[in-house]
């Protein structure tokens, strides 16, 4: 059986993590992956975790960061690039995340390289794919100019610079199709069970539900985000109906989109399916929230989506 490991609450005194969201859910499975990437970071100065959206790259990077923080005297720093639209702003965003101040006359990349020159830290660049060229250039500049820093990047595509170690994140392990009633050891099943229990305290993985869960997570290609979205609906629907509905949804989408990679397609289908389960007002709120480029306050949400008493919790 795969253990659900509670996120480590205590950080080694030698280093600390900055900018990472507190983990609100347990990190399920992938312990060997965390160890392997932590190992790569001992050997290489740039490690890029690649995989499609929803594969769990961001969460994994957070777990790796917590594991290796003790090795870095100046800690681990997260620079979230998802909200950066203009490649020219990548260095500025990273500088802001690190609290490094710029001079108007000095390029942010140079100010950063200067500030980091005597630091021993790990920089985590999350969601590089949409500004990949600028992220790669900045990485190259910083790794050259600051001897004691290392970079952990997450991206759908590799950065493609010299010295980059790439780790292609696989799906969560699935149950043995020969023994669907015995899903022990499958990370995907363990994740579903953990999140389903959060949504519905009475949920249990037993003889009746185990084979259904095994089929469901296989249908979702072991994609963590898809599994979490499905598990969130288990209380309302039950596992059998969940499987039926997702099957229907997928048949529809697969007919229309044969070229997309399977994992990408299962995620798209699950996201769409979750969206369709919202009522019309909730859908409006969800759409409107997308204009907010980064983390947002309740006031910001209400400004763009209208008053949402209690509604944000339903989304």
């Amino acid at each position, binding site marked *: 059986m795969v253990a659900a490991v509670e996120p480590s609450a205590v950080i080694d005194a030698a280093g600390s993590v900055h900018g990472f969201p507190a983990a609100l859910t347990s990190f399920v499975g992938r312990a060997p992956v965390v160890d392997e990437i932590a190992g790569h970071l001992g050997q290489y100065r740039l490690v890029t975790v690649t995989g499609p959206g929803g594969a769990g790259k961001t969460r994994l990077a957070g777990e790796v960061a917590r594991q290796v923080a003790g090795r870095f005297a100046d800690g681990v720093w997260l620079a979230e690039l998802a909200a950066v639209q203009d490649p020219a702003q990548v260095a500025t965003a990273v500088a802001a995340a690190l609290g490094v101040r710029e001079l108007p006359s000095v390029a942010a990349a140079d100010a950063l390289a200067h500030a980091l020159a005597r630091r021993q830290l790990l920089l985590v660049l999350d969601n590089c794919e949409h500004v990949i060229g600028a992220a790669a250039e900045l990485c190259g500049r910083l790794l050259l100019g600051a001897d004691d820093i290392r970079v952990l990047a997450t991206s759908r595509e590799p950065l493609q610079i010299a010295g980059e170690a790439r780790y292609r994140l696989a799906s969560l392990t699935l149950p043995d199709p020969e023994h669907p009633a015995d899903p022990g050891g499958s990370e995907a099943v363990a994740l579903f069970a953990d999140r389903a229990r959060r949504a519905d305290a009475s949920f249990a993985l037993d003889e009746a539900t185990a084979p259904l869960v095994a089929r469901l997570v296989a249908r979702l290609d072991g994609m963590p985000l898809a599994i979490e979205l499905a598990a969130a609906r288990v209380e309302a629907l039950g596992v059998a109906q969940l499987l039926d509905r997702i099957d229907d949804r997928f048949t529809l989408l697969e007919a229309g989109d044969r070229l997309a990679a399977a994992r990408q397609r299962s995620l798209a289908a699950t996201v769409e399916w979750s*969206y369709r389960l919202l009522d019309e007002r909730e859908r409006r709120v969800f759409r409107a929230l997308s204009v907010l480029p980064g983390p947002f306050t309740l006031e910001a949400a209400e400004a763009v989506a209208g008053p949402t008493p209690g509604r944000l*919790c339903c989304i």
Partner: protein
Amino acid sequence: MDCSLLVPPRAGLDGRSRYVMLETLRAYAAGLLAEAGEEGDAAAGALAGYALRVAEDALAGLAAGTGEVAAARWLDAEGATLRRALDWALEHDAAVDGDAAIAPRLAAALAWWWRSAWADRSSPGSPSAPWP
């Protein structure tokens, strides 16, 4: 808290709680919003109005002496939103409720923040950096 499409709020560097929407989901929602026509324009306009309120409230806090650091932290935390709002306002020359156009008001309200950033940031690794 039962959020499936949103990550429940957590406190940012400025002490305010913020929700997070995973980028994969935000991109999906943005696609739907783009298809929704007027709804998208309304949301972008509302974002600009919100950004202007934040910028002007921070400026007012500064004038009231509640602290430059607190005001700057707030704007730092809202940086991506302020930038997007300014980009949108510059392209649309929008007005809030018939008031003056947003872009110049936003720029005027943010000027002290940009200037303080330039001044404070003159020595990289200065005390403004979060490490000693």
